[in-house]
């Protein structure tokens, strides 16, 4: 399991979850495995802690959930709502500006503009 630094993780799980759910609905276990696969295990969460975030996103209107029985097991599937899609666009833009600014600083090209 890859280790993560919580100080750099602020907002990252939210962005990843919204991005993953953009294409299809998933249940919690699927989401966590998808995060591990898509990030080559660089981002790996204590798997259970994804649920409070999913519940908070749903409460905030970014996600919608539905219960479905698959292979005899009841699962809660999460999907992106229109509000979640807007939030994803906003977070993606913010993240792009932040990474550009950090790269600029790391390369030593001078001070970055405010993000």
């Amino acid at each position, binding site marked *: *399991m890859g280790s993560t630094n919580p100080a750099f993780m602020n907002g990252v799980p939210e962005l990843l979850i919204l991005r993953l759910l953009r294409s299809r609905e998933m*249940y*919690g*276990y699927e989401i*966590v495995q998808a995060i591990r696969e898509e990030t080559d295990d660089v981002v790996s*969460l*204590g*798997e*259970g*802690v994804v*649920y*409070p*975030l999913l*519940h*908070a996103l749903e*409460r905030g209107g970014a996600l919608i959930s539905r219960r479905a029985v698959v292979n005899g*097991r*009841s*699962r*809660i599937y999460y999907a992106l709502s229109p509000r979640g899609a807007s939030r994803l666009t906003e977070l993606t833009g913010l993240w792009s500006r932040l990474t550009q600014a950090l790269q600029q600083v790391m390369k030593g090209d001078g001070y970055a503009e405010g993000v």
Partner: protein
Amino acid sequence: MPREFDLLRERLLRAGVGGAEARRYIAELGDHLDDLLTEERQAGRSPAEAHSHAMQRLGDADALAEAMIARREFRAWSARAPAATYLVAPPVILAVTTALWMAALVGAVTWLRGHTAWGPEDWPARIRPVADGAAWFSNTALSVLLGWGLAASAIRARAPLMWPMLGLIVLAVVGAVLQVGVTLPVGGAPGEINLGSGPGGAPFGLSGYWGRFAFNFAATATPYALVHLLRATYRPRSQS
């Protein structure tokens, strides 16, 4: 379901997380654990190893609890605003329920007047049991029933003793003071249903404001305190 989840649920409830949120979280963790166990078993691990690895991947107890407790939006109203939940809401509910009960009585009498051929002399005999029952329900049973509801809600929410006890005191006071009076129609004079304050009577020969208060409080606080004490004594403990 692993014992760890029982401990986690207790910890969440005691920290003020709402019951529905805690239940859903535990249920999803249980489903997730099942998926992890399947994956670990398919990877060739023994059941004991699979369980150990799965629990490790799920997250340690502190992280799982803190992830939920840190989010204020999951806190129950009884934890966010205990004074409003236990002190203000129950007397308001008692007053509203009493008003609705009186309205229902007035509606029933009005309906009977229009749909029966009872003469003035028939009314006392026919509706006395109902009138007595209605008055007893309002003046004796209602505040006790609401007190039991408050106690059950506090126990489910694992609320600390203080606020629910204060709530039961307030409810007992309001229940002792509020009194619904039912006057039967006699000899053509109309009957009357009124709400006021009065010492009235309570079971076991208790009467007067103090008697009614003592009955209301004892009937609600005693079972609540006993269940609270039992829960505190037998709360789940870790196996270590």
